[in-house]
């Protein structure tokens, strides 16, 4: 009974994350491949207040911060980024049932192939940092979307700055690739 309740809460929490995390594309007409890696999709979540639960993915995404940003054509973790990743590492160690796929992204100012490689570099920099803070490497996978999934659509630095990111996407189920 206890197990059942826990599973239900997790399912709802993941569903909520799916609705608010812009990196979880899909839904109507989309169902993009990335959803396959992330697990959660669709259901009408909306568990209000779960961000107040420090063990919730919502808390991870919003309170700690699920992403770090990068300067142009770099994969160096900034001091602000380190603070966020310290929080992520602590959360991941506390909530050992979760795994994460770190998704690297680039802004549109670059060629497609290079940006895929650059996104991988960024995601890997985050992975290495989290591992250095004690998260088992077996729980972290890395992918890159290059410039394929901007969250901001203008063609100015204000948007580019938010698109040059690495997002730590939690999943409860085991990762296959």
């Amino acid at each position, binding site marked *: 009974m206890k197990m059942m309740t826990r599973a239900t809460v997790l399912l709802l929490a993941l569903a909520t994350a799916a609705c608010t995390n812009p990196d979880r594309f899909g839904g109507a007409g989309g169902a993009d491949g990335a959803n396959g890696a992330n697990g959660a999709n669709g259901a009408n979540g909306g568990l209000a207040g779960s961000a107040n639960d420090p063990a919730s993915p919502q808390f991870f995404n919003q309170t700690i911060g699920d992403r770090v940003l990068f300067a142009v054509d770099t994969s160096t973790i900034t001091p602000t980024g380190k603070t966020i990743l310290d929080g992520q590492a602590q959360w991941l160690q506390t909530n050992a049932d979760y795994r994460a796929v770190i998704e690297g992204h680039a802004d549109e100012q670059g060629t497609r192939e290079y940006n895929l490689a650059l996104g991988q570099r960024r995601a890997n920099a985050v992975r290495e940092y989290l591992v250095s803070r004690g998260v088992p490497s077996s729980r972290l996978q890395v992918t890159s979307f290059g410039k*394929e999934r901007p969250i901001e659509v203008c063609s100015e630095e204000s948007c580019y700055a938010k698109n040059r990111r690495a997002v730590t996407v939690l999943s409860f189920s085991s990762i296959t*690739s």
Partner: protein
Amino acid sequence: MMNKVIAVLFLWVVAFSVHAQTNDDRPLIVITDGVTEPLPFALPQFQAENSAASQISADITRLVAQDLAGTGLFREIPATSFISRVSSFTQPIAYADWRAINAQGLITGAVTVNGNQLVVKFRLYDVFSGQELGQGQQLVGTVDGWRRMAHKVADATYSRITGEGGYFDSRVVFVSESGPKDNRQKRLAIMDYDGANLQFLTDSSAIVLAPRFSPNGDRVLYTSFESGFPRINVLNVGNVSRQQLGTAQGEMAFSPRFSRDGRQVIYSLSNGGNTDIYRTDLGTGQHVRLTSAPSIETAPSLSPDGSQIVFESDRSGTQQLYIMPANGGDARRISFGDGRYGTPVWSPRGDLVAFTKQNAGRFHIGVMRTDGSEERLLTSSFLDEGPTWSPNGRVIMFSRETQGAGGTSSMYSVDISGRNLKAVPVQGGASDPSWGPLQP
């Protein structure tokens, strides 16, 4: 939602004349950077040899004219200025009448339709010298395949006039795009070089990128995010079956191209933040690492003789172009201009490398010789990238993305002279073209 790929055409070519071409196959025009005046040609509507052929003969004539004029190397003389009428495919040519309207080339043809069989005959004349250029030809195919017949006529004409291979009877595989910039749907599509006969090869359930034709056009390599991780698929164009190139967990594979024999794939593999170039044999699955630098090595493209690979690397600090032996080894840098260089593609003739250049906030498609000399930028825009060569190495197709929140991608073509820039007519967004070979 997979569409079946077009049924294979049965098409063959029969030469009328018994004798081989002699020295009258000397080109009427030699394509150089200096050619600016298009060669005027007359193309009277092909004779319909039976009533069933009347519409299709008009359609074929229009398409031949469109192919030729579309190159920018030829100019069609409007039929309203014709003095002579061509009422039979076999009648002698009144050269003086065609000279009088300044036609340098004259193409005549005749079309017959029997059920679904289509027969097209055509002849090409050099009006100034008053001679037939090469041999008359007869093409036999199907009514459904009439566009290919017209492209064949245009290819033969182009080839005889310029002395170079044509590119009209060819196809392009690309990424068809829809939806907003932050949730763009992408699917593989294939079309004729002129945008006709569009067909989808995948649905939009996963992001797909950068398809690349095999040398004979039977398969397509592309990168897919089906698994959430970029992986390389090989797709059979005939039956749209696909197979994933073996990749270990934790690795990303992308930027593939076929070897010239179609049996191997060169591509990029990323692992632990490092991207290098590898080669996998499609038959044995055996793979070889070709670069091992801590920098990003990607976008490999083989020379036509298969002996060398041009690729991009940021080992110097920014993206630049390098050439190395096909089995790996010492690489020499070939790009030294301002800015960054990426996506190199070796020309089918072997003499040039096409690339994307990023400099001072603009993107360009350009070409340079394989030693890096004679760099020439052909385009300039907010975002041009990903050149692909026409089968004859005269034209480059590429993606152009427009700026801002409503930015969309479309495909353009441009001559390697930098002239004749034009949009490739495709419904909806389109990117990442790969130009296939001339069809048999």
